[in-house]
């Protein structure tokens, strides 16, 4: 990351920069979504685009998620790249026919590429409740023909969004709402991070923690803490969940022999299940302990802060799984960093309402 032109930027700014960069490189590319041109610009990510690229390339849309996804596909098969955005993944459940029956299968069936990127924001906290908080990325990862990206840093967000946009396939690009204000050094201009490559965000030789999106933040907190107690966790950020970088995971397991797979979605049927299944199938003899998983419980996310206390996967849960796996002392387990107060916001910058 020692790029000379790199500057400290938020995740939101990174997304915005990637969009500007892509629309500059490809003068036909379009960008639309509910609120794409409104004064808030989808949490700031699309601000300024309409001014720079004009009303025909950047536009708001009717509340018609299904048809508007089909519109992107239709334009794509005539060579128009697009980025469409939905402020919550939950709204996009209306558009799955177009995504799965058309976009994902078009190249396979007709041999014509569908270069669309669909940005979905996954909500959490501040009472978002059952239908504004779903992390259903496992669904997308189940569908042949889709690529699915889940960046955890501003840096990755920019590099992966640019790669997604210029990928000839439909890409679902998932932004965790709690990452929008996170900051990292991000290069100016065009730079790409390959889709399908995981990143070792912390090397270690005792346990492999496989993680994605916001949970990388918690994994790092846990790993930093455990490191102080002599447990060296290797934190792998998947970055892309379809395709998954299996060689990177297998290689890490070959050195650690232990796996904890995290997931921001419901446990049953999670991407973490696929990770555990494949690792077990491929690295069975290398495993020193039963693999473990941590994910959201198999219940809808309730709204009340009284009910979401302790609901999310946090560093202390991660520590406790690793303690159990390694038979570490109770003190280590109990000393782990706990859920901050208030627990339902990503930081002081977040004042609601969504």
């Amino acid at each position, binding site marked *: 990351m020692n790029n000379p032109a790199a500057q400290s930027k938020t995740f939101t700014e990174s997304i915005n920069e990637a969009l500007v960069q892509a629309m500059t490189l490809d003068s036909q590319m379009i960008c639309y979504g*509910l*609120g794409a*041109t*409104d*004064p*808030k610009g989808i949490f700031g990510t699309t601000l300024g685009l309409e001014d720079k690229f004009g009303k025909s390339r950047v*536009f*708001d*849309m*009717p*509340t*018609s*998620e*299904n*048809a508007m996804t089909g519109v992107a596909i239709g334009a794509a098969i005539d060579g128009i790249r697009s980025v469409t955005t939905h402020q919550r993944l*939950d*709204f996009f*459940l*209306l558009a799955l026919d177009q995504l799965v029956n058309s976009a994902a299968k078009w190249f396979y069936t007709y041999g014509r590429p569908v270069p669309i990127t669909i940005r979905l924001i996954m909500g959490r906290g*501040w*009472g*978002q*409740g*059952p*239908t*504004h908080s779903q992390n259903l990325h496992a669904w997308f990862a189940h569908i042949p023909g889709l690529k699915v990206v889940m960046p955890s840093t501003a840096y990755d967000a920019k590099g992966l969004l640019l790669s997604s946009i210029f990928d000839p396939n439909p890409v679902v690009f998932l932004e965790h709402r709690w990452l929008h204000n996170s900051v990292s050094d991000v290069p100016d201009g065009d730079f790409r991070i390959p889709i399908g490559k995981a990143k070792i965000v912390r090397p270690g030789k005792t346990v492999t923690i496989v993680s994605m999106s916001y949970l990388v933040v918690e994994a790092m907190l846990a790993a930093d803490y455990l490191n102080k107690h002599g447990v060296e966790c290797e934190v792998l950020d998947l970055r892309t969940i379809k395709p998954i970088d299996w060689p990177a995971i297998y290689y890490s397991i070959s050195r650690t022999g232990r796996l904890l797979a995290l997931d921001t979605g419901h446990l049953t049927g999670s991407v973490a299940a696929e990770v555990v299944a494949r690792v077990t199938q491929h690295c069975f003899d290398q495993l020193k302990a039963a693999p473990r998983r941590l994910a959201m*419980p*198999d*219940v*809808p996310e*309730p*709204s*009340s*802060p*009284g*009910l*979401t*206390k*302790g*609901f999310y996967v946090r560093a202390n849960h991660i520590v406790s799984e690793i303690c159990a796996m390694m038979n570490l002392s109770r003190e280590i387990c109990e000393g782990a960093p706990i859920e901050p107060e*208030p627990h*339902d916001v990503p930081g002081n910058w977040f*004042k*609601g*309402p*969504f």
Partner: protein
Amino acid sequence: MGFMKEINNDFNVRIALNIWKNIYLIRSVEEKIAKKYPEGKMRCPTHLSIGQEGVPAAWSECVRNNDFAVSTHRGHAHYLAKGGSLNAMLGELYGKVTGCCRGRGGSMHLVDTSVGFMGTTAIVGNSIPLGVGLALSAQLKETDQISCIFLGDGAVEEGAFYESVNFAVVRKLPVLFICENNLYSVYSPLSVRQPKDRNISAMVNAMGIQTSFGDGNDPMAVFDIMTKSVKCARSGEGPFFLEFSTYRWREHCGHSYDNHLNYRSEQEFEEWRLKDPLLRLEKQLFDKDVTLEAILVQKRMLIDHEIDLAFQFAEESPYPEASEAYTKVYADE
């Protein structure tokens, strides 16, 4: 003032007073939520109905307790107008165990089945087919209930709306679709979402359903239209679609004003504020009978007090146990 002419002998003071009470209650609850939201204790996305009280307040006087209603993210007014418990609504906004969903839903999920208010959903258009299903149930059970479905102008863009109207007409279901056209979906004006000069109710009429259009800020006019259409829907003639013009005063979601964002002009806002359904109805009442002024002062005090108590109730209620989050996912648990 243009609406003076409407004050004729038909003006029913008793009904007008009831409607006034509804408006005043909704307005005051919403204003108090707006005032207290920045305290950070109501931790959920919250969409206020201030400025849009005319339609629900008049509707309230036209439907029966056992009629059904469903609504949207902006559902406080409809919930209260149907007679939903104020304590349970505020409890829900505060995330308390006394909330109508025991804190599971927040502001966008309100329910009070004891008064036929069956729920609000946070996905635009999502509750429309549910309302149609409730009407189907009423038809099957041969009750004379009707099902009222509140929706915004944005929801008209969802395919589910169109599918729902079609089915309601095919099966002649006792549905009343009530579209509150407040010109915006979040910060997006109608012009970027629907054809210029399209008239929503005319379009819907062509689907094969009876429709009316009315001024949503004229509560007594709303009452007239509602009375007729409720009668139709209840008579077995099939569904009815109503569109009312109205305007949201505050920001789309949250407690503030947001005209400074320039997605709408200050002038437009002021024009609509002059059409305030509360002031309008009060003027009508006082024109009819000047002694009502004193009565309203009284009533206001009672309502204000009720609201204060409800906020106190909600604030003092306990949170649900965190462990409750993991229970009752299934109805047979």
